[in-house]
């Protein structure tokens, strides 16, 4: 396969991650490497520990066993500083406008509010949110709220984006629009991305590599390299035989 040439530097390195909640083994021997600016998708049924894995990488929790290394940093505090997490719920603050929501990471780092707003505004124009800057979240549609939530994650200016089922709450038409939007955004602003989803199509379309996980215990059962020309329309990719073959093996691994 002629995948994109990633520099050999590993951005995220997971070694022998185990984690359990009481009797339930959430993660068992999870091990993989993500290179800089590579996009990796994780698909798996509910309860396979996908979200736990993201929290562990982000440094919100420390796995019971194993190490998470991000640019050679291993402590939770250092990991928190290097990752931005986009949760499934948009979690926009209702007392802030769309622009102020997106700019919050810069304010958190001590930037003046007016400056944070000025730095965020151009992204609204570039990513199809112009004129929605001063709307409050409940005046926005579900798709727009997700876009603002994504911009908020981008504005944290971190190389690593952890996306936790970002479009799960959207209807399927809005979702495909958002997937294309996200792909375009990431082509413009390349980042190292770990995308957790339960939607096989979404993972195959948006990432370079798809990791399939099983549930209880959550372990890796299959890894798929994807290599679709990103400039082709979505419709063509989804209906191509290569896509069908990859999807088939993913579904088989998921025992669907």
């Amino acid at each position, binding site marked *: 396969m002629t995948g994109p040439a990633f520099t050999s530097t590993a951005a995220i390195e997971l070694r022998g991650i185990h984690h359990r909640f009481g009797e339930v083994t959430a993660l068992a021997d999870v091990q993989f490497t993500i290179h800089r600016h590579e996009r990796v998708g994780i698909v798996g049924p509910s309860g396979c520990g996908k979200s736990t894995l993201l929290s562990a990488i982000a440094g919100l929790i420390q796995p019971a066993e194993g190490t998470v290394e991000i640019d050679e940093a291993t402590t939770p505090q250092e990991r928190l500083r290097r990752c931005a997490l986009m949760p499934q719920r948009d979690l926009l*603050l209702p007392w802030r406008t769309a622009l102020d929501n997106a700019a919050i990471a810069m304010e958190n780092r001590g930037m003046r509010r007016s400056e944070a707003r000025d730095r965020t505004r151009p992204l609204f124009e570039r990513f199809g949110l112009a004129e929605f800057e001063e709307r409050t979240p409940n005046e926005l549609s579900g798709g727009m709220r997700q876009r603002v939530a994504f911009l908020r994650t981008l504005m*944290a200016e971190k190389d690593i984006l952890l996306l936790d089922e970002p479009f799960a709450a959207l209807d399927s038409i809005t979702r495909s629009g958002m997937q294309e939007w996200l792909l375009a955004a990431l082509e413009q602003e390349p980042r190292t991305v770990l995308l957790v989803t339960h939607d096989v199509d979404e993972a195959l379309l948006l990432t370079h590599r798809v990791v399939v996980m099983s549930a209880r215990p959550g372990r890796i059962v299959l890894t798929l390299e994807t290599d679709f020309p990103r400039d082709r329309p979505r419709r063509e990719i989804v209906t191509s035989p290569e896509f069908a073959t990859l999807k088939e093996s993913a579904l088989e691994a998921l025992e669907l």
Partner: protein
Amino acid sequence: MSERTVSTPARDDSRTRPSRTRSIIDRYGPPALIVVLTIAAWELIIIVFDVPTYIWAPPTLIVETIREEFPDLLSHSAVTLTETLVGFFFAVVAGLAFGLLLHFSTWAKRSLYPILIASQSIPTVVLAPVFVLVLGFGLWPKVAVVALFCFFPIVVGTIDGLMSVDREYIRMMLTLDATRMGIFRRVEFPSALPQIFTGTRVAATYAAIGAVFGEWAGSQSGLGWQMLQAKGRLDTALVFADIVFITVMALSLFGLVSLVERLTIPWAKKGGRT
């Protein structure tokens, strides 16, 4: 519409968009009617059964008394209003400060919160004479009673509001480089504001009553004092006039807090979700 016709039931616009005057009548009409009818019945019963006015004053006499005693009522109102506002102000400041202390210090929360809850079984009213003994007959014992009355709902609103913040917001903020103070300023405090205002609104309704209790325990002026004097003279109409003034005062403070709330957190009502 020439190519295809889709028929849906016609929308009843009058229901989704009532005119402003109509919605006001719909909302306030029925309770206003009840109030008017009650006052009329009150007047009527006194006339029909020939009740002596020192036992139960008719509304017309109360209105007349208010007109005659207006300057006096006003000057006593000023006294009670001052006690109410000063006490309420202290309660808001102390309530917020105490709530924040308990939020930021686990130790303070563990040691003081149970005491705070337990202290509520002490009826605040019975402390009023103690305050008079300690602080004299002036403004301060009343301020103390008002502040004590109002303190509890504000503290509880603050603490509950800060405790019920959605944990997911905090996780999100942690991955966006927020410090403890940043999380407090941008997430915890704003999201606690609706509950803080709820507590403050409750406190606002207590405040005037607190002042009156304080005056009953010992004073030389104020609506509560005037009420006691009127009672001694069997001037029932004046007692009612004082009640009217106290009620108006309590309602005004409640309305003021509600207004501030609507201006400060317009987002809280509209969407219904936080």
